[in-house]
């Protein structure tokens, strides 16, 4: 078995919790990236999800059916396994605060393949780097906006508090709920195997 490993690194003026919110927010995948159809969840509980979906292959016009398992492994690492008909991928998102205002986001992409698939790894490597950059640029406004909203005292599903004295900077106390709560969408949770619980 051959392994391709690609590491991409970016920096953002937002807290690690804002970065985690963005990477665990399943509802933006379609509206912002157009990369997924609506996922069909099989399992959700605190810190982990399993779902089936069709994911768009970067820079090609095809969609691959895939099984995705994502887990918040520890406070700094989110790990995602994606199984498609052609390959198994592991994706680690490492989020670390490097100073008061900046967070480093390091994504480690790993693909396993046989020696024939390994012939394509050099092309894969270029595509993954471009993919990472595209996704980063699409996500950046979400992270910055969310950081700003929290600094104005924003409360999820409510908005900015009405009273001035309630508008306290919440960037330091905000903790992302994982998985990020979604509004009720019967379709996404309609699979007969779906289970949900607490760890």
């Amino acid at each position, binding site marked *: 078995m051959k392994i391709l490993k690609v590491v991409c690194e970016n920096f953002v003026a937002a807290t690690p919790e804002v970065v985690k*919110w963005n990477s665990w927010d399943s509802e933006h995948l379609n509206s912002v990236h157009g990369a997924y159809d609506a996922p069909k969840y099989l399992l959700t509980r605190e810190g982990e999800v399993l779902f089936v979906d069709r994911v768009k292959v970067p820079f090609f016009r095809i969609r691959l059916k895939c099984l995705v398992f994502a887990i918040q492994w520890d406070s700094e690492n989110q790990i995602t396994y994606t199984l498609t008909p052609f390959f198994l991928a592991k994706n680690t998102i490492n989020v670390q605060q490097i100073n008061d205002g900046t967070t480093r986001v390091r994504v480690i992409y790993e693909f396993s393949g046989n020696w024939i698939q390994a012939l394509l790894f050099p092309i894969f490597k270029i595509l993954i780097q471009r993919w990472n950059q595209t996704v980063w640029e699409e996500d950046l406004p979400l992270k910055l906006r*969310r950081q700003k909203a929290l600094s104005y005292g*924003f409360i999820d599903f409510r*908005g900015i508090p009405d009273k001035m004295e309630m508008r306290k900077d919440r960037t330091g106390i905000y903790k992302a709920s994982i998985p990020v709560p979604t*509004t009720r969408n019967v379709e996404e949770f309609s699979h007969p195997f779906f289970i949900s619980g607490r760890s």
Partner: protein
Amino acid sequence: MQVEIKFLDLPVEGGSVTFDFPDLKQEILIIKKGGRFMVYSSFCPHFGGPLELKGDRLHCYFHDYEFSLTDGKCLNRDTSVKCSLFNFSIIEDGICVDIT
């Protein structure tokens, strides 16, 4: 707390303008429709994305939620989240919005 916006800075018919007040920790979206101004918090009540005027509703591109211009209710999701509307008064050279 009240803020004043001059007529010159207000949107034209069918348009919208956003004003940020970092000291007051609020950002507002003013639209003009049918000759009337309406003022909203520009933070989408879902997760804070930027609200924009799209046709006859407010839209947030983060997760594609849409809201009613008249009562702020969400129009395309099964949720009770609502965007905030502000009262304002017409003054000599503009409008005065109460963003408390």
